[in-house]
């Protein structure tokens, strides 16, 4: 298999552009609906989530699925009508309620009222998440800060190891991957009500780490080819660099995505969407490294008149690192 990266670059850019545009549109719609580009989860918006499981060791307790109408009635009595409800689990025996932030007394009252109406619940399977507005703000700010700092760190490192233009283009590719992942989750939020929490920010950062890795491998090869064939046109250099590293790119994506797919399909509730975000981000990352970051580098070098590796720095031997 041989890919014509440069020849068909219009196509690659069109695909990327369309995906990024669609992501931005999804985030804009989401902004109108939720006041944020993605549907904010408990971590960022604050609130209380209770997950209660019926005690199935008690006879006749788990005979039928949890009745949502009964739950709504209880919530109405507590003045919590606007809460969102979900029944989970294979036998519909797990109830998940998300309300405004409740203090310990309100929460205990709600729990015992529910226990009476549709319980009894198994206390050892109860999950409580209660996040005050201060903490929500804090988690969001620290997450975004981590994202920005790692972007800056990566630019600095790549400028040091490569050159500034490689670094800037690599970051452009990263922004592309992050935007597409966020866009998919904006759509999921609009369609399925999927919310993002601090794990989503973690997944974005991991995507950044992995996808820059993909780009670096290709740029590393470009740099090496430039050294070996100083007379070749940058387009040919990039084309062969991408094709030389292609089976590596595919195999690496495959081996990292495999365990993630397993976690997405069979793993616990908490990690499901975390794994999905990583899968989307890694695939977008592979695509942008192979098709976008490479062709952009060629375009840039051509535009600034370095199509034939006119840069003496680059033609000079790089300091080789011993293994």
């Amino acid at each position, binding site marked *: 298999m041989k890919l014509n990266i440069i020849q068909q670059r219009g196509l690659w850019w069109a695909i990327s552009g369309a995906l990024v545009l669609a992501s931005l549109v999804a985030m804009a719609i989401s902004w109108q609906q939720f006041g944020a580009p993605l549907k904010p989860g408990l971590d960022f918006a604050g609130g209380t989530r209770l*997950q209660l*499981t019926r005690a199935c060791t008690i006879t006749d307790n788990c005979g039928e699925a949890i009745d949502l109408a009964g739950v709504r009635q209880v919530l109405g009595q507590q003045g919590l009508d606007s809460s969102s409800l979900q029944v989970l689990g294979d036998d519909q025996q797990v109830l998940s309620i998300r309300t405004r932030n409740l203090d*310990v007394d309100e929460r205990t009252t709600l729990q015992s009222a529910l226990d009476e109406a549709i319980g009894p619940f*198994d*206390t*050892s*399977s*109860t999950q*409580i*998440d*209660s*996040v*005050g507005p*201060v*903490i929500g703000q*804090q*988690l969001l700010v*620290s*997450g975004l800060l*981590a994202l920005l*700092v*790692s972007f800056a*760190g990566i630019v600095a*490192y*790549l400028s040091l*190891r490569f050159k500034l233009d490689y670094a800037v283009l690599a970051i452009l590719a990263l922004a592309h991957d992050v935007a597409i992942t966020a866009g998919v989750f904006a759509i999921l939020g609009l369609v399925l009500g999927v919310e993002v929490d*601090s*794990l989503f*920010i*973690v997944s974005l*950062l*991991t995507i950044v*780490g992995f996808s*820059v*890795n993909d780009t*670096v491998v290709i740029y*590393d*090869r470009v740099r*090496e080819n430039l050294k070996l064939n100083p007379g070749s046109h940058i387009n040919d250099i990039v084309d062969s660099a991408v094709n030389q*590293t292609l*089976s590596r790119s595919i*195999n*690496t994506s495959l*081996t*990292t995505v*495999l*365990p*993630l797919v*397993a*976690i997405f*399909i*069979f*793993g*616990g509730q*908490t*990690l499901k969407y*975390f794994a999905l975000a*990583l899968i989307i981000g890694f695939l977008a990352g592979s695509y942008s490294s192979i098709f976008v970051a490479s062709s952009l580098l060629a375009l840039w070098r051509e535009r600034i008149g370095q199509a034939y590796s006119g840069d003496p720095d680059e033609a000079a031997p790089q300091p080789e*690192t011993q*293994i």
Partner: protein
Amino acid sequence: MAKYRAWLGVILALTIAAVVIITQIPTRLGLDLRGGSQLTIQVQPTEAIPTITEREMEAVQTVVEGRVNGLGVSEAVVQQLGNNQLLVQLPGVSDPEQAERVLGGTAQLEFRAQRPGTDQQLAIENQVLQAHLGELAALQASLPDGTAIDAETQARIERLQADIKASETAIAGLFEPSTLGGDKLTDAIARPTGGTLWEVVIQFNNEGGNEFAEISKAIAGTGRTIGIFLDNRLLSAPTVNVQYAETGITGGSAVISGNFTAESARDLEIQLRGGALPLPVEVVENRTVGPTLGRDSIQRSLYAGLAGLALVLVFMVVYYRLPGALADLALIIYALLTWAAFNLLGVTLTLPGIAGFILSIGMAVDANVLIFERTREELRSNKTLYRSVESGFFRAFSSILDGNVTTLISCLALFYFGAGLVKGFALTLGIGVLISMFTALTCTRTLMFLAISLPQFRRPSLFCPGLDTVRPNPVRP
């Protein structure tokens, strides 16, 4: 080849050490996996104390620690978070509502006079309390770290806890009620008396000074004590000398002396200061996971991740042949080393932490893929097997280094800015990436060179299918 044999020895020794560490030191599981409550407590400034400094946080932390001890949860952790927050971790707590109620609220410090004729009773109750406390401490010390507690031990802890509570209530009943509270105490300072002994100076405001003078006047010389209570628990019960029987201790200041060491004097000082702080604390975050729930989610995610990894191992052998098999071996060594590092460094494994670990295995595979692809390229360009393997490692190095460093940069950012679960993820991924550099470059390399030193493995088809016709027999280096 002697070099690689030596390396093989090192790798073997490390692997054995790792296995020993894994079996000897238990893995610490996070609250999301073993069940328990994690609370974030925010200290609220008041009009009197508009800014919260390090000194105030220390005092509040002591108060909260005292309350946590009262809950009787083994291995509870209280640590400062930022400028005005405390993180409280309560593994295996059975009643999160009670915990949240006890931990919130302002500290209650009181100075109360002992009731007449209760000396003997006080001594007995104190003995009972000390016995219970000793038993509980011994029980908790005997529990292994980071593992779930069985129901029987849990019940025993709860029973002891109830006994302690009963003793404390009984002791509190032996003292008169009082209006002299922590709000009237302005300061407490521990100081040495000259020898090895220490004392604690307490200072009241005007109103407090007058009330204290009255209480001390009433009990001076009687042998009865002034009970200093923090959240209804007796901290200290000093007597008042007979010379104050006329006037009481006036001037708003008093010295508590006795058998204080530097440490116990300082403890009392901080407890008093914490009790004197009228700072309300509020539970702003509560994350509680029931113990069974934690167990279910760890199992599901672990099995899923392992199944995915098994597929990766199979893929490596099918696609990369002999090097793939060697890389699999190196990956298993990698997994053991990383697991041992977690146990050795006391890393607390959370669910995202396990995800980070599984991802770092993906990174480790990537390094091998880079090397093997490069080796194949060199073989196809008609180099000898030895040279191909050599330059495969050499040329792939800069890619591996750059890729890992950039991932490490992300990990650092996450670890520095992130909180809780996020930190755990960054830590496990970071440790994993560092160790994977070692195993991919050293383990795989050593195994590869040792393998091609054996004639039966020296067939290029074992490295790159379809190459046998090109180069039947490699030349020795």
